[in-house]
């Protein structure tokens, strides 16, 4: 199961990086979202996908799932959600003011 998850995370990274390398701004934003999904899947997989009860001490239960990756992934999801929404607003605003959403044309010059 871990192998399948790793391959999936790799696919997400791959498509994410492909989108990051595009010129259109919106594609780049989508690329960052895909990369962060890949990172989150990696966290979940790296703690080993154990099957077992919720990590609460009860009698008679031997197998517990690992709670730490879940805590980490939750924090990371919230952060990437916040950054992505900020990035969307900023991309909208930047393309409005600079009159283009093509990264090739957003290079700028030395004196401003």
């Amino acid at each position, binding site marked *: 199961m871990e192998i399948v998850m790793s391959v999936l995370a790799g696919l997400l990274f791959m498509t994410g990086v492909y989108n*990051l390398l595009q010129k259109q701004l919106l594609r780049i934003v989508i690329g*960052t979202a895909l990369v962060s999904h*890949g990172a989150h899947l*990696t966290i979940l997989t790296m703690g080993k996908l154990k099957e077992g009860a919720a990590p609460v001490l009860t009698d008679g239960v031997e197998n517990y799932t690992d709670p730490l*990756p879940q805590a980490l992934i939750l924090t990371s999801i919230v952060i990437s959600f916040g950054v992505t929404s900020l*990035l969307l607003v900023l991309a909208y605003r*930047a393309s409005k003011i*600079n009159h283009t959403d093509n990264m090739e044309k*957003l290079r700028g010059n030395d004196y401003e």
Partner: protein
Amino acid sequence: MSNLAVLPIILPFLAGILVAFFHKNLIASRIFSIIATMLHLALTIFVFLNVQESGSYVLEVGGWEAPFGIVIVADPLSSLLTMTTAVVAAAAVIYAPKSLSRIQEEFYFYSFFFLLIAGVNGAFLTGDLFNLFVFFEVLLMASYGLIVLGNGKAQLRESLKYILINLFSSMLFVTTISFLYSVVGTVNMAQAAERVGEVEQQGVLTVIGILLFFVFATKAAVFPLYYWLPSSYTVPNAVVSALFGALLTKVGVYSILRTFTLIFNYEVGLTHTLFIYLAMFTMIFGVIGALSTNNVKLIIAYNVIPAVGFMLMGIGIFTETSIAGSIYYLVHDMIIKAVLFLLIGAVTYAAGTSDLKKMGGLIHHYPVLGWMFFLSTLVLAGIPPFSGFIGKLLLLQGGLNQEEILIVIVALISSLGILFSMIRIFIGGFWGAADIMELPKQKPSLGAMTWPIGILLSLSILLGVGAEMFYPAVSSIADYVMNPELYIESVLKE
């Protein structure tokens, strides 16, 4: 008393939230911000002195015991850096009202400022790798707010690139932490260090270490990854550039210093040699960049890069002398970079342009500014007896003791290049006849801009002239950093 460790994070955090409630009332928010930064400064000095006297403070957040919960560790190194941060913050907050436009100040400059300080302090103080990522995000979020503040065309354009590169490296950071977790089963720095030591850093751990280095190198602007820095540090307001130049790259350098002295210190021949070469290229390319342009802001921004090279050189050489040099240089550079960005803000404010070719003869109109600029040039380039010299001396001494001749030569030549790039601004901007530039009839008065710079600059000079006073503390911190078992013991209490 262990709650003292977390106060340097809590205080600016609370101040940032409180000041948002009266953001339209400029006078109240200015007074409140000055009081809060002064309190913060006093607090960090108190923490530093206490830590020097009685050893590290460790706070186990929420009462969870060390390897299981998050720990906040105020040890000699991190308390020294929070103190320096507080000094820079205090100068920036006094400088801010003059430099920012009314609208920038009203739209939550002070909130972002305090949150940035909270994030920087958090990154210095935390003893947990994942928590380090969270504090990186806190300070990056605040910096995203600061970099677009003002809504200029160039600002929006450059902030996009800044956010994208940081977002990508953050995601790499999370992935790397998950790799580390899968191998050593912990994200607590002290426990990770202990477990990496038990297996003597086998193959895969070195790979994880290098990955982690590249994450921090992106934040610190080390050689192949510095390209985002110059333009994004020049577009925002001078105060914001000063905060970025003084604090953000140094957080990256601190993280490299911490992880590669504490956790990944068993394959020195591989990792630390790599650092020496990267440091060399960082210096060379930074100096070439600084010499390549006539935009004064860009010259200063490029000068951030060779300084990172110097600190990385100390970490790469990895002896007690060179680490002491790195720490001395870190403190020196935080202060002098703030001075330079604030100074160049005042220069462009007075001259009305950042093009060196259009400037000239400023010293007739602003003599104090001119001499301060000249002094800070000497401090930056490391002319004795100023503070840059002491740091570089220790670094070069460490390098010669280890017979790393090449890096020593490159360091010396790039110091010369730094001096040349700065003197170009002084000659082009300040020398010449009084009437080269057409200044407006009503010369803009600099007023409150000069004296925070003056205080920072005199502090920096004191750091060099009074080196005998400060060196024992720095050397004891270097001794502490080179003995990671002290850190592990203080956190895990075995």
